[in-house]
């Protein structure tokens, strides 16, 4: 498995962020893990790429059920970003949502849809597939 430079987690649940961060680190899948607890925070971070060019995410795990800006609304804003700010980023949905409507919606927007929790196996599979 290739080691990525940076993976971003967007989830309002700090426990999930903590656990997923730990899974990524244990699997040694990335140099840096950025954990954002809101879509707004994540967008701000992406827009400031020039401040930390080495820590721009190659891969983002996005939660759907978040208060305020939810995952879908984040995606709308994300699409408006400069390609440069988006580039090399693959979005993978990471949620407990088993709602078939959500699943259909996700499939139309993002290449991957996965159910929480993130595991080492899942991570390997995704990185091998896209990097």
């Amino acid at each position, binding site marked *: 498995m290739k080691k990525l430079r940076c993976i971003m987690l967007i989830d309002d*649940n700090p*426990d*999930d962020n903590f*656990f997923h961060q*730990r899974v990524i680190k244990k699997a040694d899948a990335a140099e840096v893990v950025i954990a954002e607890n809101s879509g707004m925070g994540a967008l701000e971070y992406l827009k400031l790429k020039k401040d930390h060019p080495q820590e721009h995410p190659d891969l983002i795990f996005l939660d759907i059920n978040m208060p305020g800006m939810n995952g879908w609304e984040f995606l709308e804003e994300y699409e408006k970003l400069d390609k440069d700010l988006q580039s090399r980023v693959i979005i993978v949905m990471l949620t*407990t*949502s*088993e*709602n*078939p409507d959500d699943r259909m919606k996700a499939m139309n927007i993002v290449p991957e849809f996965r159910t*929480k*929790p993130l595991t080492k196996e899942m991570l390997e599979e995704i990185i091998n597939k896209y990097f």
Partner: protein
Amino acid sequence: MEQKQIKHTELTFQLIVESSPNAIVLVNKEGKIAYVNNQTEKLFGYTKVELVGQLVEMLIPTRYSENHPGFRNTFFTSPKVRSMGVGRELFALRKDNTEFPIEIGLNPIVTVDGTMVLASIIDITERKKAEERFRLVVESAPNAMVLVNHEGIITLINRQTETLFGYERIELVGKKIEILLPERFSKHHPEHRTSFFRTPQTRSMGAGRNLFARKKDGSEIQVEIGLNPIDAVEGQLVLVSIIDITDRKKAEERFRLVVESAPNAMILVNHEGVINLINKQTEILFGYERSELIGKKLEILLPERFSNQHSTHRNDFFKKPQTRSMGKGRDLFAKRKDGTEVQVEIGLNPIETAEGQLVLASIIDITERKIQEMILKKQVELETKNKELEQFAYVASHDLQEPLRTVSNYMQIFEEDYLAHLDDDARKYIHSVNNATKRMSTLVKALLDFSRLGRNSKLAHVDCNELIDNVVSDLQTLIKRTNSIIHVAEMPSLNLYEVEIGQLFQNLISNAIKFQEKNSTPEVHIYSKNVNGKWQFSVRDNGIGITPAHFERIFDIFQRLHATAEYEGSGIGLANCKRIVELHQGEIWVESTLGKGATFNFTIPPLTI
């Protein structure tokens, strides 16, 4: 003395003659005018001097005067009082050569100068005009009119009569009126006629009876007849006005048939609220015989609490009659013969008839509908409740999943980082917590599945042979491990929710394999048959069986009969099965004897895609 007496008589005669309103002309045997009165001067424009001594023919138009001496002579051969020229029209000639119609009465008089004739002449110009006017009025009447004298002889008909009866005028005038009656009526007609002339007054004929007339071709028409007595010079006459109501009667009959064949009760009521007509459905709805209702006030069909105000409502309706439903917004009730009430809906239709304004009330028994409406309302409520419950189950299971995952995540971290530092007891506890967490996760997932059953699926035509093949191959691991034998009989193809039915069979087959005595060989039979158009599927096992007390309970959610240690399960499998069968509007039940296996049956009715 005798001379004086004669003089006196002459004077009296002269006075009488002069005071007569008619022209009076005295003519002798030779046809010479012996005397005329003042009226004669006025009427003819001659002076007495110009007339007396002249032949009477000077007062007659030339076309008649030639034959007149002959008539005159005939009169004198047998002189008697009579009117002149019966049946002929008579005319007189004035000095100025104009003619005018007259009537003449002839009286022979014996005088000293021999027998003379006293002609009394009436100018009938005005009467002729009046008669002509009358004739024109009759002629222009829109319906057939026949003038009949007291002997029943037709003296006048109009064009409409010709049209209606198919006779020419000439064929009817002078004939007895009975020519226009069907034979079965003509026999007694003269009696009716006589009784009319005894007390002649304007009235309609045969009130309440159906009247018929006969045409020239023998066919009959239904008629309505008005009788008007007319005093004429010829004596008492009756002007008969005849209306052909055959079409109206036909229309009435059609109307009656339409009403009779209506699928709901219909009642025809007049402005006084008297029932005029009802149909069979009315008899059925209210339990009355036709004869018990016709002629009665409509209030007989109303509960007392409404009947008081009904006449007011009725009057309001007749003031402004229009098609509308009755008592909009109010609940209407009607009363049956047995006193029971029935909730109704009433439509009102004003109908103009010969008998005046009527209203046709169309009554629908809505008791059944009201019950249906209530059931439907309850059903909608229930569906809403069900939806809410589904939504609740979905949200609850979804939200429960999240903290549960956090617990199991931290348990994983704990095991990874600290298990090595723990003693055996602690490890056992951690193991138990892990098991409980997994089990809870299974339950929550099951609940989620249960709440979502059939939500996004569509009916499809499914070959159940293939469907069960797939289910059995999905269960291969379990079947191999338990050495189970599965027998599948020939299966039908029908419309189903494919995924759900797959789950159903999977549940039933795995239950059949699971609930077995240890070390026994599970044997499962799957078969189907058509019962009254529905397919009945059965899954029979040779397992531990179920006691009848539990036959119902096993289909409830989270109901388990066995300890987890003995037989694993979420307790939701059969609840799912039941929901899936209900989704197909079918039924599911179990037949079993404890220790002797169980058979799960379910039915699927024909479903339209």
